[in-house]
């Protein structure tokens, strides 16, 4: 039996939780647990670690650095309150019999979001939400071996919206107290866990970083909702043109995020970003019940770079039209193995997922001696792409071909200055993207410690860019595709326009005879993976596309179209999708 309770909570009266998904990802959990992050493999270090934990480490920020931090903080009431409270914590936070902190950080994220969604021509969601999360991390131990583990990974709370210094400092005070106590629990738990493993770790728990003071202008969400709402309603009205459209929604998600950061090393930063997204989403079913979906999206760093109302309307019409064409399209054949040309849009998905997700320097589970996680954990200095390709991640690049890159930032969420990182050079994996948690051979952050509001930082791409020594025009690529097919005696090969989860949404047969294209449906890629990128990618286009994305942090991928000499295409396993039991209602107007 569950416990049913009489309570005084005022806010859950009725279905509010349903809105949770529409609001932002501030994961307001006090503590985030993550698998233990350390694998010690060196007895000497272990000894040092235990010695350091009983010793009382005191924060000794050089006075001139701390004074400079104070000066920077005095320019903003929020930073000032954070600095004042940190100043107090760093000198006075100490319980008997347990170590004092060696590092404290406060991060406040001010999040302002406007979300609206229309379905079938009418608004269903329309809201503006603002919140401030504070995240406090207290580390005990030392840079070599510390408490950043399990409950020691930070405490989260809400902060006052109105720059009230007293209220903010009270929240920080309580969060700091909890974080300090948890840090000591975490340090003990971590030691107990690591005692199970004999190997030590030849790298620190926490990378030192240069104190940085940088106050950027605040970013504001300055938008008049009315024309946007009208645009959503109008574009989602396109369902009227096709009775077989089963769902059609237009969504917008605009957000401005400002981050205030202060740590005991003397770093004081303030920076922000805005990101604007429009998403169309439509679904229909083919006569055999197969569900067909499209969800084109547009993400930009400025409002001006979003499609105009006319363009967006045209996109909605085009989407409904492709859904209609998909319904009528033939099913893909049972088996195909041969050349496939990926549009730049599809290529961005591939590079984002298969490279972007695998070049992050993150700690493997305790006891696991791997360098990092993911498919490139043991690929350091190995070839992961064809030798004619390189990839860099450059958050410092602001625009590309005139487009604002949403993955740009000057300072990451750990208060470290962003830097350009040559990730893959001539096909060889040369660098991982690093936050302040070191891994083997990578003792320092390269300014890629990113975090969603309230969340713990995690390495992430910023602007991930594909660079090639050799490129072809799209026409040349298509000709190459057809030539290869002809060589293999195939009547047609494939070109994929858009992907969803690495499977085609829009896939075309390209006929060898005259180059004409035919839309097909029901296809999956059987073996598209990092090995395909290394071994089967044979040419790239000169048509790089800027793909701005809203992930847990905004990122940008820039990639051209790409040609694989061999990818397997197979038929989607069909669930017994049923057509609607009865027809949709007639339109009244």
């Amino acid at each position, binding site marked *: 039996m*569950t*416990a049913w309770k009489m309570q005084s909570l005022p806010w859950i009266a009725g279905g509010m939780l349903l809105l949770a998904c529409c609001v932002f990802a501030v994961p307001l959990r006090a503590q985030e647990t993550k698998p233990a992050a350390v694998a010690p493999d060196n007895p000497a270090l272990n000894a040092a670690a235990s010695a350091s934990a009983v010793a009382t480490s005191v924060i000794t920020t050089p006075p001139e650095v701390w004074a400079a931090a104070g000066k920077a903080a005095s320019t903003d009431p929020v930073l000032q309150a954070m600095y004042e409270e940190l100043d107090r914590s760093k000198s006075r936070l100490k319980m008997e019999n347990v170590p004092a902190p060696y590092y404290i950080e406060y991060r406040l994220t001010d999040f302002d979001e406007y979300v609206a969604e229309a379905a079938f021509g009418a608004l269903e969601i329309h809201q503006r939400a603002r919140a401030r999360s504070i995240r406090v991390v207290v580390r005990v131990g030392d840079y070599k071996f510390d408490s950043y583990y399990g409950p020691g990974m930070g405490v989260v709370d809400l902060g006052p919206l109105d720059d009230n210094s007293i209220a903010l400092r009270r929240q920080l005070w309580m969060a700091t107290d909890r974080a300090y106590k948890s840090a000591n629990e975490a340090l003990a738990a971590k030691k107990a866990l690591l005692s199970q493993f004999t190997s030590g770790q030849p790298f620190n728990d926490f990378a030192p970083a240069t104190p940085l003071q940088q106050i950027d202008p605040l970013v504001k969400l300055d938008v008049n909702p009315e024309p946007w709402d009208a645009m959503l309603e109008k574009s989602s009205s396109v369902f009227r043109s096709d009775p077989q459209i089963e769902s059609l929604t237009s969504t917008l998600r605009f957000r401005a995020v400002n981050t205030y950061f202060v740590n005991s090393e003397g770093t004081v930063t303030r920076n922000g970003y805005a990101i604007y997204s429009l998403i169309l989403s439509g679904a229909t079913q083919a006569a055999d019940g197969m569900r067909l979906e499209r969800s084109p999206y547009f993400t930009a760093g400025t409002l001006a770079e979003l499609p105009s109302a006319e363009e967006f309307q045209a996109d909605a019409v085009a989407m409904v039209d492709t859904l209609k064409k998909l319904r009528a399209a033939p099913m893909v054949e049972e088996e195909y193995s041969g050349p496939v040309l990926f549009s730049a849009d599809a290529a961005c998905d591939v590079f984002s997922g298969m490279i972007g997700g695998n070049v992050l320097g993150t700690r493997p589970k305790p006891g696991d001696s791997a360098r990092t996680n993911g498919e490139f954990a043991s690929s350091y200095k190995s070839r992961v792409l064809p030798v004619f390709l390189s990839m860099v991640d450059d958050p410092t690049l602001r625009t590309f071909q005139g487009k604002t890159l949403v993955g740009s930032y000057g300072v990451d969420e750990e208060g470290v200055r962003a830097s350009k990182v040559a990730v893959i050079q001539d096909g060889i994996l040369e660098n991982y993207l690093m936050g302040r948690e070191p891994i083997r051979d990578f003792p320092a952050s390269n300014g890629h410690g990113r975090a969603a509001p309230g969340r713990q930082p995690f390495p992430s791409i910023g602007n991930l860019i594909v660079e090639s020594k050799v490129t072809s025009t799209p026409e040349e690529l298509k000709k190459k595709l057809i030539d290869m097919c002809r060589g293999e005696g195939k009547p047609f090969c494939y070109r994929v326009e858009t992907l969803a989860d690495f499977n085609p949404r829009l896939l075309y047969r390209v006929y060898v005879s005259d180059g004409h294209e035919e839309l097909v449906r029901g296809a999956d890629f059987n073996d598209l993976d990092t090995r395909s990128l290394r071994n089967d990618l044979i040419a790239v286009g000169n048509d790089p596309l800027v793909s701005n994305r809203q992930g847990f942090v905004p990122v940008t991928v820039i990639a051209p179209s790409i040609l694989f000499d061999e990818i397997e295409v197979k038929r989607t396993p069909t669930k017994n999708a049923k057509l609607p039991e009865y027809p949709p209602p007639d339109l009244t107007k």
Partner: protein
Amino acid sequence: MKQLARRPAVYFLLIVFASPLVAFSSGTPSDALLPVMQRELKRATAALSKADPAPYFMSYSAADADVSVIVGENGGIILDNQVHRRQGDVIMRVGSPALDNTHNQSRPSGITSGALPLEDDPDAVSRVLWQLTDREYEKASAAFLKVKTNTAVQSAEDDKSPDFSQETAQTHLDETPWKSSFDQKQWEDRVRKVSEAFLKYPQVYDSAVFLTVENSRSYLATSEGTALVRPAAVSRLVIQGETRADDGMELLRVETFQGASPSELPSEPELLAKVQKIGEDLTALRAAPVAEPYAGPALLSGRAAAVFFHEVLGHRLEGHRQRGETEGQTFTKKINQMVLPAFLSVTDDPTRHELNGVELAGSYDYDDEGVPAERVDAVVNGVLKSFLMSRMPVNGFSHSNGHGRRQPGLMAVGRQGNLIVTSTNTVKDSELRQKFIEEIKKQGKPYGLYFADIQGGFTLTTRALPQAFQVIPVMVYRVYADGRPDELVRGVDIVGTPLLSLNNIMLTGDTLQVFNGICGAESGQVPVSAAAPAMLFSEIEVQKKARGTDRPPVMPPPEISSAAVARGAKQ
């Protein structure tokens, strides 16, 4: 560690509120929505009657609500949002009333929910309803097949009642416009000011002031012909303070106020007085001795008794608990038997709006299944007579008595509305204390326990509780037989079977006190009231509460420089 997770978890719930950017048509009733729902329901009913298996019942409901939330802590506003939302629920029963898709554990298969257009665009509304209906049919028909199979292969259930009762269709269209007298700015200032008053109590480590103002209208259309439109308005203000004793024990005080509109909430001076009371209570509690294990006479204030009855008795009266295989079924076979002392009676009366001048939170005219609310005399002169019934029948009770309640998105079950405990064995409230002391002396005890306030089983601090219905005494005093002054104690935990202790009630006071709150259960959060007179128990058994292990904060709270105060105040 566990307690660290709690506040943020709560805020996660809070944060889902967000503000609409323009004022929607609040204030004007939406006369177009119901006809659109009815038209589409008729079409769906006709179309699906040819399906196999076919639904025998369908309902469309819409919950249209404007909600404002303001939360303040330490003089700062940490949340300030308004949202206008309209949720649609499609409920479907496939099979027959005797056995349908909602049988037993498969109850959630009866409902599919989604956002409805915020305005009455008939084409969009009917399209969304069609979509939800199609999805619900897929779910309900699959669940029905599973239910049929399970029923065939499993041993027969004790209670062979049908899954759905037959009730008369109702029509009631109350399209009274929403009252909207909410002065956002004024309330922001008030929440700021009231929350700031806690700064005077340095040992109140955590505190918050929550305000919600909700105006809503619910729409219901069923395939049986029921058509209801009902407005509702409720404003709630909660003040909470929290501290920790030096031994780590967590101490919490919560005060809740409720009215139809914000203007019915207490004035600022009254709220500030409450903060002062909470601050003083917590300061006293921190310094109070820890309760010792004790069994002996106890006196419960009316509010404490009301909460006690809601948790301990009220939930066991809920009809659906009498047939669930996983339920305790405490009362299932006790109809017409004594369950309370003969001088006590318990009714649940949602049709009552006010008691002793206090507006009752659990009032409604129709329940969420469209059945008219009824006063239910559940316990008469100590004898169990009836349960709080939704449209889920149980042995001996084949009809709803208008207690099927739910929050949007969930299936209704029998729930409490206004639970009212009355007594025929009363003394004047002023004489209760004397009776109490006499009883203490008679039993030869040095003291008895006076429970001035009992928190409901779920508050901001409480984690999942092992006990089914938990009561947390917060303000408990030792009342000495020898005339010494009363002594506040902390950490009291009632043990033994609370239900048995109800039979130790000897006599009661003569005035009913009301506790208004929100009750959470499997059908979600619903507003409820409980009312009871003060009660004298011959015996209640208590033990020391397990205490937290965290120490009080290491550092004192920040002292704010006058410059900072000025800056803070300006913002």
